[in-house]
Every structure is written in structure tokens, then in C-alpha cells.
């Protein structure tokens, strides 16, 4: 499944009238696949609810940007608020769904998406940890394997954690997994049969039901 197909797949699982935060990068594309009739409301952590699509041309307003600092638009029924209120909204568990990218997710739902732990890296976390622990459901969108073929769904994260046990579902190019205290389960396999994915992951040391 390509990234856009995957974004559409995630969009299909977001219940109507949900309040949703879409992380920077791949998750942002989910917005393009939400049915405008669904009543899904987008939150951006820099202080807005009911964010609209990306702004182009004359509609670009330097005072109206998303968390990725890209110009966006405002939909009717929008509200603006300051950073402390915006993150209170997240930390307080008021968002229904948050969709994030990841370097690694563990079978029990640990998330690593802020640092690869490289010794010379400049640490930078932004809102990643707030998003990880804040939403009622945290979905991750990622490829199942990195460019070097190493699995990103793992028995336990080797990269520094963003949040412990916070992810409930992982959407990958190969399959959708539920993760949590009971471990990882294939919820839906796309092009390859589930059994084959299980075998492939078992070879990396990860048992998936």
C-alpha cells in the first residue's frame, strides 16, 4: 500500500465527529482523505481547532500555520487558544485520536519517534511526548521496515521512548496491527497473507498473533 492509500485507510477508521490531531509528515496526509461530511475536527497543537486544508496563493497568512509551520486555513466553527490551553486539551485526554509517525513501536504500544539516540544528534522533542500520552487513541502510521530492512514494529524499542504503552494501533504499508498489553495482533493484512507477515516478523524476533 502506498502512503496515500494508507492515509485513506487510516481516514476510514476515524469515527465521525472525532477530534483529531495529525502529526507532522505522513499523518498530515490523512486530512486529504477525511470526508468533509464526517464532522471530524482537526486540532493543531500550536493553538487551533477546526483547522482547514493547506493554504496556497493569496490565502497564505503568516499568522495561520499548523504544527509543521505550514500555512493552513480556518474552517467555520474554528477556535484559537494559547499553548498552555492547547496542550491542556491534549494532556487532559480530550482528543479522540492522534495519528503519529514513528521510528519504532513495540508490541506493547511503546512509541519511539523523537530521537534515534545518535550520540551527536541535537535533542529536539517538540510536542511528540505530549501527543503520545494525550489522545484517547494513538494511531501510528509507518512503514513496517526501514530503508535498511530493519523492522520498525519490535519486541521492545531500542530508540529512546517518546511514551510508554501509549499506541493502540499501527498502520503500515503491509498490514494494520493492534498493539497493547496483550502484544501485537494483525488486524488486517493488505497484499501479503497474514501468515507470511507473521513468519517474516518472527524471523526478526517478534511474535505477532
Amino acid at each position, binding site marked *: 500500500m502506498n502512503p496515500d492509500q494508507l492515509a485513506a485507510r487510516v481516514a476510514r477508521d476515524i469515527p465521525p465527529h472525532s477530534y483529531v490531531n495529525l502529526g507532522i509528515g505522513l499523518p498530515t496526509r490523512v486530512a486529504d482523505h477525511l470526508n468533509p461530511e464526517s464532522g471530524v475536527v482537526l486540532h493543531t497543537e500550536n493553538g*487551533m481547532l477546526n483547522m482547514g486544508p493547506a493554504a496556497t496563493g493569496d490565502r497564505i497568512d*503568516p*499568522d495561520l500555520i499548523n504544527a509543521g509551520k505550514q500555512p493552513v486555513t480556518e474552517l467555520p466553527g474554528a477556535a484559537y487558544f494559547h*499553548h498552555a490551553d492547547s496542550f491542556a486539551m491534549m494532556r487532559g485526554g480530550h482528543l479522540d485520536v492522534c495519528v503519529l509517525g514513528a521510528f519504532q513501536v513495540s508490541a506493547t504500544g511503546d512509541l519511539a519517534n523523537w*530521537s534515534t539516540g545518535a550520540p551527536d544528534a*541535537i*535533542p529536539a522533542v517538540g510536542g*511528540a*511526548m505530549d501527543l503520545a500520552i494525550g489522545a484517547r487513541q494513538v494511531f501510528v502510521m509507518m512503514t513496517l521496515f526501514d530503508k535498511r530492512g530493519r523492522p520498525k514494529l519490535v519486541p521492545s524499542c531500542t530508540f529512546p*521512548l517518546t511514551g510508554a504503552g501509549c499506541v493502540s494501533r499501527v498502520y503500515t504499508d503491509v498490514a494494520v496491527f493492534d498493539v497493547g498489553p496483550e502484544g501485537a495482533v494483525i488486524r488486517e493484512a493488505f497484499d501479503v497473507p497474514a501468515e507470511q507477515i507473521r513468519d517474516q516478523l518472527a524471523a526478526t524476533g517478534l511474535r505477532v498473533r
Partner: protein
Amino acid sequence: MIVASADDAVAGIADGSTVLVGGFGRAGMPYGLIDALIRQGATGLTVVSNNAGNGDTGLAALLKAGRVAKVICSFPRQTDSYVFDQLYRAGQVELEVVPQGTLAERLRAAGAGIGAFFCPTGAGTLLAEGKESRTIDGRDHVLEYPIRGDVALIQAHRADGMGNLVYRKTARNFGPVMATAATTTIVEVGAVVEVGALDPEAVVTPGIYVDRVVNGSPA
């Protein structure tokens, strides 16, 4: 309250001050005040802001001028944060990384007279190392302390003559919390309006939090 220039607005900021700088990316960034602070010359500053500067302007220019001893922020590393990156790798600036919401909440705590708070964000991660932690209601929390500023430099859309402020769209970001967290709050606004011209129901920062206002042109 209303001062004549950005230079007047930043007069008296002492070496070694903790300076809260509003803005998220370029939105809400008080460029005029930062430029004035560079001219003013205060050095050895601790800067608290979401980022650590873009390109060669604003915070990046302040860093480049060698005035900043420490940065407290959530996300220093950006595609165009080369000034900070270089200083950091050369060991010329100290860095404290704080999750974005915890940064906002620690500023709020300073303004709201809260001594410390147990926060779930970052519990069990590298950023919680060395911090007091506690499990409350089955959830792990980290004890976080207020961040107080000697000075806040923020940008707003409109001010009235009493210092009441309104912001514009997502340029609001850190302005209202930083205004509460500093001993002296200095604001660059798009325009100053008559007292009574702002809707009392829509004032975001009441004038009690504001010390100096300069009519600047937002970038």
C-alpha cells in the same frame, strides 16, 4: 505603558537575564524587540522559546551575536537552525529540552503561583531522568517546576492604552502564558487602539500582565 520605540521597550534588560521569547516558528515572533535587544547589548542570557531560531534573523541573530548562554526550548533543531546547531556543537550554548506542552505549563505555573506540578508527559523517557516521579491513579508522572522570566518579549495583534491584548490566529501561541510568567512583559503590536475599543469578553491578555507596549509592524 506605551513606549516610543523598540529600543525604549528593551531598555534596562540586564546581563544574565532569563528572557521568554514568544512565537512558534515565525508566527508571533517579536522580531522588532529581538533586533532591539541585540542593539541593547545584554549578554549571558537564558532564552526560553519554543525553537532556537530560524535562518539568520530573530533568535538566530541574537545567538549569532553571542548573547545567549542557555536555551530552554522544545525543538531547537530545524532545517534552518544552523546558527544554533553550530554554537551547540561547539559547546558555546547550553541546551535544556522540554516537551512543548510541559514548557507551556511550566510557564503557566510561574504566572499562576503554582510551586510545582506532577505531569504525565515524558514519564519513563530520557527527559524525565533525574526528575522526581510519582505514580498517581496508576499513571506515572514527573514533577515539573515553574519557569520564570525576568523579561518576556512577545508579539500581539492589538493593544489598548491599558495594555489589554488580543492576538491573531495561531500567532497567539506562547504570548499569553509568557506574559504572565515574566517580571517585565514587553509587547510588540500591530497597532495601539483606544481604551474601550477592545471587547472585554475577547481580551486574551489583561493589561495587568503587560508593562511596555511598542507599536511595531509585525513581520
